[in-house]
């Protein structure tokens, strides 16, 4: 793969990264792999695959591309689109078992919310190893005898990533704004400019207001408001439009064409302000899943300090007390309720607990994933 092609794919897919971009699933040889070469696995979001291949240049390895419906690993695994079935399928149908003498597959750590290592082992005989969060850390991870450092397994949201997400949101919304061209050619450029300014401003200024997202209330996760769950912002918007309409009518300037233009333009801005900003990164709670209102609870009777939770937590919430052989929720305020630790704990020692004391069992999270928009219908116990 040439650098030019890599750059081209990166640009196009960054602009359109809120959409799924599936690439071909199956086995890819990196370099000149042999019978002891590492086997890595990732989802089939094209941008991810390109980044992993880019990171692996100069190494010898097998790369398995599993079907994550063209969606990135984190969103697909957490949303139930990238599951044990996809991993089992590519392990068993790609023929990789005939090419290597070992049975160790390295999975991206951010898939731990949806892929259960125990199930993979039971169904295929392959041991799962959680690799680093970022593809660029893979060479260092392999060189260090497949050990992840704390930094490798912790998700951050540096300015480059924030810039990426700002572009990913601004570009498609700009395309919506372009639809105004036939009726309002003069207004499109300022509107597009406004969209990019708001989007870049929101994401780049993230550290200034991120404290807000540590709240546990109903609004946790949304930058300003959640248009989908509350009608108030829409009512305010309609109210403002009505006031503007009446004012121009009283001044004798009212025209329907103006009303349409300003109505559509302000709707574009409203969409942007109401987006699930924190859901754009695994660093913060997404506003879209109800489980963000729950708390992780540890059953010390069951815990054996095996550290599965510590290895898959993207927020480094856990510490292991090796003397007592017990996990400790050292930084509970940082938890984003992704559920990865619950899914992976072999002793079912972790679960979600609501403020009213109700419990969401590990089996529920494993089977139905997170409660995205109330989608999980099975009863809680």
């Amino acid at each position, binding site marked *: 793969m040439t650098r030019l092609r890599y750059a081209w794919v990166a640009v196009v897919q960054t602009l359109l990264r*809120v959409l799924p971009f599936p690439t*071909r*699933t*199956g*086995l890819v040889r990196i370099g000149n792999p042999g019978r002891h070469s590492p086997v890595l696995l990732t989802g089939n979001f094209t941008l991810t695959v390109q980044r992993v291949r880019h990171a692996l240049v100069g190494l010898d390895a097998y790369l398995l591309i599993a*079907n994550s419906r063209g969606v990135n690993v984190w969103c697909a695994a957490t*949303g139930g689109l990238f*599951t044990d*079935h*996809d991993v*089992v*399928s*590519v*392990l*068993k*149908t*790609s*023929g990789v078992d005939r090419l290597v003498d070992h049975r160790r597959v390295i999975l991206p750590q951010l898939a731990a919310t949806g892929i259960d290592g125990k199930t993979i082992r039971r*169904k295929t005989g392959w041991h799962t190893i959680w690799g680093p969060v970022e593809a660029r850390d893979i060479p260092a991870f392999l060189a260090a005898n497949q050990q992840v450092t704390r930094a490798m397994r912790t998700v951050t949201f540096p300015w480059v990533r924030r810039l990426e997400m700002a572009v990913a*949101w601004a570009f498609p*919304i700009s395309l919506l704004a372009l639809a105004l061209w036939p009726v309002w050619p003069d207004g499109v450029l300022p509107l597009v400019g406004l969209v990019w300014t708001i989007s870049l401003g929101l994401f780049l200024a993230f550290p200034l207001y991120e404290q807000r997202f540590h709240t546990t209330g109903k609004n946790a996760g949304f930058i300003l408001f*959640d*248009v*989908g769950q509350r009608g108030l912002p829409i009512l305010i918007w309609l109210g403002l439009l009505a006031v503007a309409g009446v004012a121009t009518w009283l001044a004798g300037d009212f025209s329907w064409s103006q009303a349409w233009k300003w109505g559509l333009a302000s709707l574009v801005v*409203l*969409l942007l302000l*109401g*987006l*699930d900003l924190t*859901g754009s990164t695994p660093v913060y709670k997404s506003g*879209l899943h109800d489980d963000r209102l729950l708390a992780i609870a540890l059953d010390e009777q069951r815990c054996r300090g095996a550290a599965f939770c510590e290895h898959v937590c993207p927020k480094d919430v856990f510490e292991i007390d090796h003397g007592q052989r017990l996990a400790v929720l050292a930084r509970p305020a940082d938890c984003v309720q992704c559920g990865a630790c619950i899914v992976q704990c072999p002793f079912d020692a972790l679960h979600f607990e609501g403020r009213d004391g109700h419990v969401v069992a590990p089996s529920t999270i494993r*089977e*139905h994933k997170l409660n*995205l*928009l109330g*989608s999980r*219908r099975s009863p809680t116990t």
Partner: protein
Amino acid sequence: MSTYVLMRLLESAPHRYDRGIQILTFGHVGRAYDRLVRQISPGQRVLDIGCGTGALTLRAAARGASVRGIDRDAEMLAIARERMAQEHLEDRVELADEGVAELDAEPAAGYDVVMSGLCFSELSPDELRYTLTQVRRMLQPGGLLLVADEVLPSGFVARLFYRVVRAPMVVLTYLLTQQTTHAARRLADRLNDVGLAVIDEQRSLLGSFTCLVARRQDDPAAPAAAT
């Protein structure tokens, strides 16, 4: 907000699956399934690969067969279970949350009929090869494979016409259900490669939808001498 709308649509997709598929195939699927299950007799052991919401499974069970349906989508299976209860077919139907890669756990020659509706076209080439090899292994000698699925029409003009006609339907279906299907390529050849001979095929929708019956051939590597 933007993601909210998208996710709301996505999570409701399993409930809309059947409707979406009916739209995409102009209602052909239901009729094709009815035709296929006529091959099934009471008391036969049947496996439905990718049973989804149970369209083929329940039809086969209603004919008196004992059916095992597998699917990798827990939400679809939940709907299938509801329907199974409504039609009082629990005694003859067994549903499992399994993917095609787990077919190797099924018994050899354990089924009289294996069937699959709109599943093979969803599989990757690796998965389809694996699945068909397993189908051959799971079928009794002379057992039948029943398939209703989208295929790519043969002939350049037919293919072009198919793509043009299909494009707006794909958009409509995606908007309504966030589901779409892909056409399987060279299905009959692939069946032949693993020792399944097509004995009946009906094409419809400009040759893009197939309803086929294939029979397990005697194993060429172990001919009659083995019996």
